């Protein structure tokens, strides 16, 4: 044992922790522990999952595949929207009041 260790041992023997704990110390510790355990495991799991997905998505092949799928879905959605609006467009095209109401302030 070195002299530094001896000095430390003596110091610890003479140390008298005289600090008094707060009356609610134990209760507060438990409250903090419960709060941490209860609130975050689901969030942590979700964040971990999201992080894993994002790491996977960052791979060039998967990024390319995801972009290609997004383009196909975009074409499909755009086409369906254009088709679903046809009736409304026809009714607007034969409605002179609609044209008129866009041209005048008095409606």
């Amino acid at each position, binding site marked *: 044992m070195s002299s530094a260790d001896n000095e430390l041992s003596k110091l610890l023997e003479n140390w008298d922790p005289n600090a008094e704990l707060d009356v609610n110390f134990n209760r507060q510790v438990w409250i903090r522990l419960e709060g941490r355990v209860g609130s975050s495991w689901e969030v942590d799991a979700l964040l971990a999952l999201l*992080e894993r*997905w*994002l*790491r*996977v*998505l*960052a791979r060039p092949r998967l*990024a390319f595949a*995801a*972009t290609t799928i*997004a*383009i196909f*879905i*975009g*074409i499909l*959605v*755009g*086409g369906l*929207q*254009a*088709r679903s*609006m*046809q*009736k*409304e*467009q*026809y*009714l*607007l*095209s*034969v*409605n*002179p*009041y*609609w*044209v*008129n109401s866009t*041209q*005048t*302030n*008095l409606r």
Partner: protein
Amino acid sequence: MQRGLLVLALVIGVGVGTAVVSKHIFQEPPTAWLCREYGLNQQQVDQLKEPEKEYAYRCGHLCGEMCKANSDLETLALGSDSITPEVRAAVVVTDRIRTETRLEMLDHFYSIAATLPPERRHDYLVKVLPLVIEPCSSPMR
């Protein structure tokens, strides 16, 4: 992770952009709905063109008249604090034009219905008549 976020944003952006562009690309003339809904052939589609043109011309003329009549009514109504004979006359003019427009619409709808298969005419009229009967309401129904 940042790279993954960037890729995700790119994928979403590309998807939304493609949807917007393809919506414009796939847009067809309004009569395309008539053809699809009522199964018209090319000859029937060609028959629609002339009434469409005439209707657009007549309604364009009436729209111009309506705009002017509305503008006159607005000027007179704002310049008065009671119903004067001039205000009353201006209201009558707008109503006359509105009635003429409704009759034009009805006439056009009958002419279009005449080109459709007989069993589908009633269905077409049910769809377009609200424009004539409730002309101030939105056609988006």
